[in-house]
């Protein structure tokens, strides 16, 4: 630091991007995780199926007696803290999360596996409640849990319980949904209010507890997807989990080589979620959901699909929020409440409250 005051070369210090070790940001669903996948996992495992980079992978021609149908396969791990939160628990998330990843390829979820990593000292009563919740969620989603695994780690080496679920589903004949299928002119919809899950979990996190009526939105979305497919031409589906709506729109814009524009005002938000975000210095566009999807559909189908969504219990507050453009490929632009516009980028790493 020199003693001379130099105002012209002043700049914000650049956040680090390249860490020699894993930091929490690598798991936050943003740019750091995308880098990890692109530079470490994808090249190591490279194959034609992984290249799809969707929520689930569609495995062609593995269904002997029904050559027109295709299998979809996916996996997801769940590490939420606290284990129980308003509106749900880790067990429901573990079933719905994998069910939804399959549904986002238009696949009817059929079978799940469940892997448990249990920490020494976890009360059996707690495990029992979580497993019951999984069983109930599986019934609701119409899937069978057909394989499992249990490991125990020493006290202090886990956060009570971690759950991994993998899932297999069947893509119905004629259904073609994937992240690269968005076309200019298509319409962007969301299935309901954004940010409920993330705020519900934050509201009970240690050191941050605040009173709110917000509940997690965890829900299985295949039946909603089924009604949408029946109502019109669906091109892309994503469930807006980690990284929220902003991350999903960016991934779709990049995968489809299109631009996306949306009206910030049209994004459904619960007043309590808006208020919590204002108070905490967070942007609801980046907050996680566990029972909401983002759909990109053909323009001529948009109204019919919207009506079908609103008639479904998990899509009552669905809304058209924007459209796909042939300009600014790979970029997502929001029109703001006051009529301005801004770039909405992928989050970098962990979401942090702003001081300024």
């Amino acid at each position, binding site marked *: *630091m*020199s*003693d*001379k*005051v*130099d*105002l*012209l*070369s*002043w*700049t*914000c*210090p*650049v*956040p*680090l*991007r*390249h*860490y020699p*070790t*894993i*930091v*929490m*940001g690598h798991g936050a669903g943003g740019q750091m995780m995308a*880098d990890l996948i692109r530079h470490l996992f994808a090249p190591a495992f490279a194959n034609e199926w992984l290249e799809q980079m969707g929520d689930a992978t569609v495995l062609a021609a593995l269904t002997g007696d029904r050559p027109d149908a295709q299998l979809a396969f996916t996996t997801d791990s769940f590490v939420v803290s606290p284990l129980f939160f308003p509106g749900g628990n880790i067990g429901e998330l573990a079933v719905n999360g994998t069910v939804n990843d399959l549904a986002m390829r238009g696949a009817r979820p059929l079978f799940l596996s469940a892997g448990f990593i249990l920490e020494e000292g976890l009360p059996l009563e707690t495990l029992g409640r979580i497993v019951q919740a999984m069983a109930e969620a599986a019934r609701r989603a119409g899937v069978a849990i057909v394989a499992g695994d249990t490991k125990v780690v020493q006290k202090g080496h886990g956060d009570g319980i971690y759950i991994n679920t993998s899932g297999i589903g069947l893509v119905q004949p004629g259904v073609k949904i994937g992240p690269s299928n968005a076309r200019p002119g298509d319409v962007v919809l969301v299935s309901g209010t954004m940010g409920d899950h993330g705020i519900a979990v934050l509201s009970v996190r240690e*050191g*941050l507890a605040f009173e709110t009526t917000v509940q997690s939105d965890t829900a299985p979305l295949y039946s909603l997807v089924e009604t949408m497919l029946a109502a019109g031409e669906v091109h892309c589906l994503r469930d807006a989990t980690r990284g929220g709506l902003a991350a999903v729109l960016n991934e779709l814009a990049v995968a489809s080589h299109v631009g996306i524009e949306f009206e910030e005002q049209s994004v459904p938000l619960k*007043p309590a979620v*808006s*208020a919590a975000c*204002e108070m*905490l*210095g967070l*942007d609801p566009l980046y907050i996680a959901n566990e029972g909401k999807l983002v759909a990109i559909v053909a323009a001529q189908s948009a109204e019919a699909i919207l009506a079908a969504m609103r008639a479904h219990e998990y899509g009552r507050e669905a809304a058209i929020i924007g459209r796909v453009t042939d*300009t*600014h*490929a*790979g*970029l997502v632009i929001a*029109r*703001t*409440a*006051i*009529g*301005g*516009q*801004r*770039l*909405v*980028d992928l989050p*970098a*790493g*962990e979401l*942090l*409250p*702003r*001081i*300024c």
Partner: protein
Amino acid sequence: MRYVDEYRDAGLTQKLLAEIRKTVTRPWTIMEVCGGQTHSIIKSGLDQMLPPEITLIHGPGCPVCVTPLELVDKAIAIASRPEVIFASYGDMVRVPGSGRDLFSVRAAGGDVRIVYSPLEAVEIARRNPEKTVVFFAIGFETTAPANAMAVLQARAQGLKNFAVLVSHVTVPAAIRALMDSPEVRVDGFLAAGHVCTVMGYWEYEPLAAQYHIPIVVTGFEPVDILNGMLTCVRLLESGRAEVRNAYGRSVRREGNVAAQAVIRQVFEMTDRAWRGIGVIPMSGYRLRAEFAEFDAEQRFPQVQAIATHESPLCISGLVLQGLRRPDECPAFGKECTPQSPLGATMVSSEGACAAYYRYGRRHER
């Protein structure tokens, strides 16, 4: 949301913009001092809606950005100690020191916790008597009363395991430094509403008179910012160098006297280094001698002689002030891309370089 939505009203925004367009007759350069206002301007897209006569410069009022490298390195050294729980405001955790940040400390096993209030850090100290809890007390006058209160609370509770690492800076000193700099051309300032809520705006009156510049106390929502800007443009157009309050629902001339008393009780003025800028005389606070037992720098004397290393800076400071276009930077699109940025303007989605890079690439296709 009540008390927020009305200040984001599209109709009112358009009315204020029209009024600014009607009032302005020549180019003016206006600086919003505060990072919170910059954030609001970019987030609402206000910057692209202003008449071309008005150039907005984003000021150095981002408390995490101006916290000197030396203090960040001290924070990292203290947070790495096994007996320490280090508590910080959220966005300070990702600010890099000489090669590392507080995220890396956490990944290496350090106990780094994000708190919303310094009083939470006091509470953590009370619950963990076997640990030393260090709070990173940074920020402008806005956070100073709460940070001072934390020290008073710790003393009242007789806590021996609580300390603060202080890096407080003040706005009037920054305005003085900006106006004393021969290169900087600013015609008027939007002062930060929350700083003035605490400190009032009487301190700015001598600055306005000495440097012959209007200073307008301004809030944070789009309507507030445009209201402040309109007030500033009116003052500029009529040649008046005065201080005006365009954030009356929160700010009084004398400020929050009780909060100021708490600041004065715990802190005293000192020279402070501003990251990327340099030492500005009497520009910040340090703990008074009677609170030395709560001073983390004294409690951990081994961090005093810390060697810092700042990576070479890009020209984003010049870009931010409109003195260079992003593509005039030799590193633009070569060493510096959104994937591996050298400067904040390429990191942030809101940054000029990132926008320029992406739109530029679009034209190539």
